[in-house]
């Protein structure tokens, strides 16, 4: 399993939110590019970068900065936040970013999803942000009536290769991952799952790894790494 340190960008700074609340941000670095370089030096094998301004405003805001990160480091970069249109996807795919995450649009617009699969193919990641099992949209601010498991099965059927599953009740709260939810999802679908939300210590990583579900290919860690609960090397010793 691959560890993906998270870099969330708001106002040009590297921050962590609690439960996706844009007003509840902790600033961890004023230089996201330097922060990315540090994660690489500490042994990260890939990064997950989110443009929070983009997610909130529903358009690409900090793409140039994310591309600078992807060009500066020599590991794959996954990017999400504000990617809502086919033009957005085309723009991202022309640059150095390795994987692009879409959210809201995939749920509300099937034509968009199909075109996104066609354009971005294996590079496309669809985020499944769940609150008590139900999918949320618009930067986690609106709740839908679709269950996460049903949505994931639909995405698989439409040709999506990777889903990013985030339990938003847990994200940034340092209370452990919702393992029941993520394992239910991993058993329902065959496609690659990137798990996110709530990892707070090495024991959480051990428990995730112990699920022994091959299609949970990677795990995103934010606050726990920033607050020094464990290092990249310690995490990799468990996950590799």
């Amino acid at each position, binding site marked *: 399993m691959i560890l993906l340190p998270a870099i969330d960008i708001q106002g040009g700074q590297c921050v962590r939110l609690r439960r996706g609340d844009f007003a509840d941000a902790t600033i961890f670095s004023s230089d996201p590019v330097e922060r990315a370089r540090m994660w*690489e030096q500490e042994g990260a094998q890939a990064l997950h970068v989110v443009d929070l301004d983009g997610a909130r405003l529903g358009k690409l805001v900090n793409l140039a900065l994310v591309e600078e990160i992807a060009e*500066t480091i020599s590991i*794959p970069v996954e990017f999400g936040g504000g990617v809502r249109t086919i033009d957005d996807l085309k723009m991202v795919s*022309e640059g150095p970013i390795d994987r692009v995450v879409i959210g809201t649009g995939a749920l509300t617009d099937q034509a968009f999803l199909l075109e996104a699969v066609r354009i971005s193919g*294996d590079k496309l990641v669809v985020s499944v942000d769940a609150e008590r099992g139900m999918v949320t949209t618009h930067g986690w601010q609106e709740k839908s009536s679709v269950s996460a498991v049903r949505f994931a099965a639909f995405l698989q059927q439409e040709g999506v290769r990777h889903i990013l599953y985030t339990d938003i009740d847990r994200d940034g709260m340092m209370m452990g991952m919702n393992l029941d939810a993520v394992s239910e999802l991993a058993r329902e679908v065959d496609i690659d799952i990137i798990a996110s939300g709530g990892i707070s210590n090495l024991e959480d990583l051990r428990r995730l790894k112990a699920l022994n579900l091959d299609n949970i290919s990677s795990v995103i860690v934010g606050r726990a790494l920033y607050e020094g609960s464990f290092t990249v090397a310690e995490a990799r010793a468990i996950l590799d």
Partner: protein
Amino acid sequence: MGNLRSVEKALEKVGATVSVSRDPDEVRRAERIVLPGVGAFGDAMANLEKRGLAGVIREEVEAGKPFLGICLGLDLLFEESDEHGLHEGLGLLPGRVELLPTDLKIPHIGWNQVSIRKQSPLLAGVPDGSSFYFVHSYAVVPRDESDILCQTEYGCTFVSAVERGNIAAFQFHPEKSSSLGLTILKNFAS
């Protein structure tokens, strides 16, 4: 052309002077040639032919110029590929390109271990069994086993790097494989 830019930046990081070019004369003048590439074999080959690059690459490599292929740049070295129909490659190495014969998910995406099959200055400082970053569905099948530099397991054993004289090529992406990837690029550039 994100891949190009990443390769360019990574080579610059290890001290190389890089020029991204589609001009046959410039390729002829270069000290070394790097052929990256993501995408379909047939389209790439057609583009190389159309721009007059295929001939120049063949001539320069046959004359002994150091050549590094990455991903599709590895596949293109061989005689033919059955990716979306049968296509002819550069034919600089004997063998063909085939869909990965695996039961695991295709494309093969992610970090995977590489076993080193022969000594090479390009792999100086790279321990046997190191992991590199892969994104591919096809793999090369060299006819001459002595061309095999590395192999990797993915529900099958496939050739993840080749080397013959001045020609070397990798199925994985050194430019996305952190410090060990950069080590390989540095070994090539110096």
